[in-house]
C-alpha cells in the first residue's frame, strides 16, 4: 500500500499532506496530555511492530504482494492517537532509510495508513467490543476492526491512484503519473486486501494482541484484560510488562526473511524500471519515469553484495532500534508527568 515517489502528482501530495497536518497536531496534543511520559517509548515499540508487520510480505497469485500494517493493533494497545504517530514514524523511516514509499507521497501514505486505518479500525473495534470484559468479544472486535481498517485504507489508496489519470495527463492523453483509472485501481487494490492481506492483518493483529494481553500485562490490578480505558488511553494503573514484548519482537525480527519468500512487488509499488514489463503498458508515464526520487541507504531493505535475508534482518533491526530511539527522545522532550504519588 506504500505509494512510491511520482505515482501521485505533487498537487495531490500537497493536498493529502495538508489534510494530515491537523491530524498530526491533534494526535501530538492528545498523546502529550494523555499518555504518561514514561509510556511514550511504548509508542515506539508499537511503531516497531507496525514496521515489522509491513516487512512480512504475503504473495498474491498474479505476482503482486502485500502486507499487514498493524495500525489497528497499536490503536488497541495505546489508543488511536498514539497509533497515528507510531505508524507515521514507521512510514517516515521506511521512506527515508529504505526507499519504501515516497517522500512527496508521504502525506498520502500517512493519510491511508496512519489516519484512516487506525482511527477507523479502532472505531469498529469499540463498536463491537464496547465495554465488554469478555475476551472473545474483544478479539472479535480486534479482528473485524483491523480488517475494516486495512480495507478502508486500501480503498483510499486506490482512489488516490485512480484519480491521477483523470486529472493529470499530457496532450496525447498519456497519463503523467499513475496510469490506471479507478476501474482498474480499485479492483486491483481491493482484491488483494479483501482477501489475503486483510487476513494477514487480522492474523497479525489478533495474534499479537492476545499475546500481549495475556502475557505482557501484570495481573496485579485485577482487570488485566482491559488495557485501554474508555477514551482509548492506556490505563495507567496497569503496568505493561516489557520483557515478553521484546522477546516477541526479537522473534519477529528473526522471522522477517519469510517476507522475502514472496517474490514480486506490491500493486502500485513498482519502480519505473519494472512498470512496463509488469503492467504491459506501452509507455512509461512521463513524470513517473523522470521524476525526483531519493536514493536511500538500504533501497528496498537490501544491500548490494549481501544476501537478501541478512540484509532484511539488518534492516528490521535498524528500523526497530531507530523507532524506539525516536520515541524515547520524544518522551524526554515532554515536560512533567512525574509520578507524584507517595509510595
Amino acid at each position, binding site marked *: 500500500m506504500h505509494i512510491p515517489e511520482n505515482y501521485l502528482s505533487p498537487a495531490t501530495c500537497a493536498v493529502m499532506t495538508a489534510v494530515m497536518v491537523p491530524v498530526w497536531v491533534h494526535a501530538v496534543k492528545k498523546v502529550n496530555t494523555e499518555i504518561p511520559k514514561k509510556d511514550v517509548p511504548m509508542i515506539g515499540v508499537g511503531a516497531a511492530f507496525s514496521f515489522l508487520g509491513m516487512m512480512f510480505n504475503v504473495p498474491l497469485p498474479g505476482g503482486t504482494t502485500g502486507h499487514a500494517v498493524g495500525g489497528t493493533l497499536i490503536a488497541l494497545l495505546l489508543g488511536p492517537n498514539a497509533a497515528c504517530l507510531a505508524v507515521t514514524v514507521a512510514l517516515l523511516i521506511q521512506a527515508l532509510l529504505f526507499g519504501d514509499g515516497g517522500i512527496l507521497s508521504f502525506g498520502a501514505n500517512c493519510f491511508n495508513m496512519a489516519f484512516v486505518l487506525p482511527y477507523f479500525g479502532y472505531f469498529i473495534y469499540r463498536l463491537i467490543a464496547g465495554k465488554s470484559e469478555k475476551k472473545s468479544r474483544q478479539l472479535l472486535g480486534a479482528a473485524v476492526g483491523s480488517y475494516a481498517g486495512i480495507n478502508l485504507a486500501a480503498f483510499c489508496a486506490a482512489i488516490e491512484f485512480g484519480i491521477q489519470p483523470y486529472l493529470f495527463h499530457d496532450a496525447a492523453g498519456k497519463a503523467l503519473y499513475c496510469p490506471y483509472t479507478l476501474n482498474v485501481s480499485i479492483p486491483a487494490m481491493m482484491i488483494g486486501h479483501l482477501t489475503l492481506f486483510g487476513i494477514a492483518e487480522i492474523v497479525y493483529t489478533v495474534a499479537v494482541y492476545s499475546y500481549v494481553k495475556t502475557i505482557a500485562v501484570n495481573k496485579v490490578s485485577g482487570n488485566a484484560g482491559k488495557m485501554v480505558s474508555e477514551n482509548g488511553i492506556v490505563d495507567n494503573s496497569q503496568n505493561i510488562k516489557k520483557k515478553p514484548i521484546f522477546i516477541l519482537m526479537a522473534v519477529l525480527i528473526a522471522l522477517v526473511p519469510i517476507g522475502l519468500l514472496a517474490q514480486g512487488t506490491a500493486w502500485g509499488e513498482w519502480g519505473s524500471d519494472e512498470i512496463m514489463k509488469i503492467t504491459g503498458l506501452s509507455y512509461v508515464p512521463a513524470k513517473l519515469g523522470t521524476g525526483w526520487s531519493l536514493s536511500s541507504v538500504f533501497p528496498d531493505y537490501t544491500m548490494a553484495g549481501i544476501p537478501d535475508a541478512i540484509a532484511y534482518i539488518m534492516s528490521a533491526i535498524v528500523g526497530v532500534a531507530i523507532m524506539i530511539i525516536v520515541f524515547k527522545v520524544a518522551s524526554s522532550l515532554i*515536560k*512533567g508527568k*512525574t*509520578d*507524584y504519588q*507517595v509510595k
Partner: protein
Amino acid sequence: MIDCNDICYAYEGVPALRHVSFNIEEKECVVFRGPNGCGKSTLFKLLNGLIFPEVGTYTFQGELITEKTMSDQLFAKRFHQTVGYIFQNSDMQLFCSTVIEELEFGPRQMGLTDEEIDKRSKDVVEMLGIENLLGRAPYHLSGGEKKKVAIGCILTMNPKVLILDEPLAGLDDRSKKWLSEFLLLFKKTDKTILIATHDRELTELLADRVIEIDENHLVKS
C-alpha cells in the same frame, strides 16, 4: 500575596515537592520547617522564580509566575527587586570583588543617586556591624561573615518580601540575637518574611504561622 496551588516539582523525575498548596498574606511572617531534604530550599527557589513548578501554579501579587512571564525582562527585574532571597549557601551568593561593592551592586543597578547609595550601604553596614570587612574580598571571609554580607546586600535593595534560607546557620550568638531582633523589627515595617529554619527560638519569636513539610515532600496540615 503569595499563592501556591498544588505545586509539584521533581529533579530528573525524583519528586522534591508534592502537591504543595498554601497562601501567604501581605505582612505575614511564615516559617517553613521540615527535616533535611524535605524541599524547603527547592520551594524557595521556586518562589523566587528560579525554577518553575511542573504541576500547579504560583501566583505572586496576582501575577502568574511562569517561565514565560519571567522571560519579560522588566517584569523579572521588578520581581527580583520586590523579593529578596538569601541563599542557604552564602558562598554562592557573593560575586563582587569587595564587600562594599557587593553592598552597592543592587542599589546601583536600580539607578539610585550616589548619595542615596552611600547612605543605604552605610546604614546597612552599621546595622550588621561589618565596618571592618568593607574592603575585604567576600570569598575570603569566614562562614558567619559571609552570611552577614549576603543579608546586607539584599537589604540595600530594600525588598518588600524577604526570603531567608537557614539564616541563622553558622552565626554566633550575638549575631543570631541581632538578626532575630532585626527580623522582628523588619516584620513590623509592613514587610513579608518567609524563613526556612530549624531554630525553635526564632520560630517562636517570629512566626505568625508555621508551615511544616514532611519527609515525603508533602505539606502537613
